[in-house]
């Protein structure tokens, strides 16, 4: 999908002004926040598990090459074909070659963020292969030609009525007068439509929540069971994963799974957690006859070598966006690419470059809610701050902004001058605002003042008041 990150400000303003989107947003992440809190409260060791999860991710990243080699060796020994791709283009070609060699006409997919990142669907479709997303949320947005608006709930921006209207327009082979007005009916209809696709697909593509070196397995977690049908029914299974997904042992993966589900949906375990290891065995009655694993770098080694390294700990739970006031106000699409929310504001500049994405690190109040819930304790705020600094240092600025910034830094780095100017400004503002005690309108910050007034200063600066208080001057 083509990034639209440069338009962040316009997109965010449009999102806030969109009543339909706002009504969908109003209902949702709040539930996930409450469910997470309940799950965390129910597990006394949760905080200790977060530290442990962080330690596991750090230790794995510190020896990443060794763990990847171990994974490759074990997965190969178990009968999988392991492929490596440095960037999106190589990954798409590798996957496309596997599909073409197998004469695939229909590909069914489980939910996978990395295939969104590399724009896999469009690429395969351009070469004449039908690609169908099977996660219900992904299916809905694929039909609409949209990107996911949340990493675990891709259609969170849509209401039930939106989905009903979509299904009526896509599923034209069904009775026009059918009843469809409940989530149950909509789910049943999608189940029937997608069941046909599952049964006829040649290739199933899944992502991986984790890759296990100990066993050469991929692990996926789903609630729908769509990922399982994807990797059981078609004759070829392709696992697509970035290189940071590797975990040395099953026991370590378990610690990550314990914090993942609780942080994401408040479940202690999603309905289906599945280890897939190689193709079907000689005496198996089902399962794919071939299993391919595509390991993708696409910017991860650069992150590993940079000060964005800690963002590679991410296990894609979505908690940071559920708890983000900015995400809750504007939804995921305003971020303009596949990863929204605080992790998107950190990851997207790392993957696409800061020039195109310079507004994204501003999509934060720096309230810190994201890092206080992140199960692997990524310092999202300071990483966003680093990007802000970098955007500032290389971003295009107007002459006016440059002069203002110079003047500001001249004042702010000279305390005596700063106090003098502040006293002067506060005294004037105090005198102007004395009558009402507040400003309803100012030549700047119009949007801000539309919904609130600015209290007028009392006429003396904080430093003055502090000194007076120290001297015991009554106010």
């Amino acid at each position, binding site marked *: 999908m083509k990034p639209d990150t440069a338009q962040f400000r316009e997109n965010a303003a449009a999102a806030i002004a969109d009543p339909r989107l706002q009504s969908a947003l109003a209902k949702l992440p709040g539930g996930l926040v409450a469910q997470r809190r309940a799950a965390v409260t129910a597990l006394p*060791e949760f905080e200790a*598990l977060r530290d442990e999860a962080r330690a596991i991710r750090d230790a794995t990243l510190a020896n990443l090459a060794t763990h990847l080699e171990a994974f490759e060796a074990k997965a190969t020994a178990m009968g999988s074909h392991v492929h490596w791709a440095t960037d999106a283009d190589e990954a798409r070609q590798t996957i496309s070659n596997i599909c073409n060699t197998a004469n695939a006409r229909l590909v069914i997919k489980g939910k996978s963020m990395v295939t969104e990142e590399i724009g896999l669907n469009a690429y395969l479709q351009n070469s004449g292969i039908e690609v169908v997303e099977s996660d219900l949320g992904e299916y809905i947005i694929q039909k609409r030609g949209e990107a996911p608006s949340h990493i675990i709930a*891709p259609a969170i921006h849509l209401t039930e009525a939106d989905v009903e209207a979509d299904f009526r327009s896509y599923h034209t082979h069904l009775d026009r007068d059918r009843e469809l007005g409940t989530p149950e009916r909509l789910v049943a209809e999608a189940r029937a439509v997608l069941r046909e696709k599952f049964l006829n697909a040649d290739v199933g593509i899944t992502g991986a929540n984790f890759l296990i070196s100990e066993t050469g397995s991929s692990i996926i977690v789903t609630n729908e069971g769509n990922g399982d049908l994807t990797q059981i029914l078609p004759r070829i299974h392709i696992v697509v994963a970035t290189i940071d997904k590797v975990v040395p042992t099953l026991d370590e993966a378990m610690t990550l799974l314990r914090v993942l589900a609780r942080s994401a949906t408040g479940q202690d375990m999603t*309905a289906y957690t599945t280890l*897939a290891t190689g193709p079907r065995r000689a005496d198996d009655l089902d399962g794919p006859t071939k299993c391919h694993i595509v390991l993708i770098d696409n910017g991860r080694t650069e992150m590993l070598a940079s000060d964005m390294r800690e963002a590679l700990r991410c296990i894609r739970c979505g908690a940071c966006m559920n708890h983000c006031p900015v995400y809750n106000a504007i939804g995921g699409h305003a971020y303009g690419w596949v990863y929204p929310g605080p992790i998107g504001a950190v990851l997207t500049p790392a993957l696409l470059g800061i020039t195109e994405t310079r507004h994204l690190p501003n999509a934060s109040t720096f309230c810190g809610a994201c890092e206080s819930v992140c199960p692997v304790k990524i310092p999202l705020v300071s990483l966003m701050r680093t990007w802000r600094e970098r955007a500032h240092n290389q971003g295009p600025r107007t002459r006016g902004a440059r002069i203002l910034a110079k003047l500001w830094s001249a004042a702010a780095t000279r305390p005596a001058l700063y106090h003098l100017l502040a006293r002067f400004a506060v005294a004037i503002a105090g005198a102007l605002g004395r009558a009402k005690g507040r400003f309803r309108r100012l030549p700047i910050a119009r949007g801000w003042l539309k919904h609130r007034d600015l209290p007028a200063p009392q006429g003396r600066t904080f430093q003055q008041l502090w000194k007076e208080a120290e001297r015991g001057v009554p106010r």
Partner: protein
Amino acid sequence: MSRNAILARIRVANPAPQSPPHEAKPAPASLASAGADAVLRFRTAAEAKGVIVVDVDQPANLPLAVVRTLSAANIPVDTIRLNDPALLALPLSDANVTLTRGAAEPHDRLSLSRAVAAVAETGSLLLASGPDNPSSLAFLPETHLVTVQRSTIIGTFEEAFALLRTRYGNSLPRTINIISGASRTGDIGGRIVQGAHGPRQLFVFII
């Protein structure tokens, strides 16, 4: 070659000396349980996920328990798909049930699998694929029935993985399914609906 280029870049980003290997910690104490305690905990956790849990005092009584439980849930019991020899040996056909062998077919309504173990921590079932228990049984039919031996209900996933290592050495079957409730989705309007792509209902028979 991309493989070597990627590994080389990682090694540059991770200069020696590298940190000592991480030692996995045991499961959190509050999640551990054993024996009768584990059985109770498994049942409570599974029921909280909408799973129907039924006690069966001996294998020979499984057919009756299946028929009774499904009738009570208004699920017609006509044909059951299964392939596990131990379960096929039970007098299910005496209970007026037709048994079909093999992996699941698209129009199967009922299937029966045998779990390797169950994990009390989250009320989850551990199923291993193979000729006796093809994994399609757990996903294609609308209703999935699973038997688990009472003695194989264990406390935590660490114990479950230890059991897998003992049983399969270092070569796992194609699929290990950890199943914690029936298939569900919250993707339409945020409300949870059961039976997204897999079974609408899950029944566990503890033998």
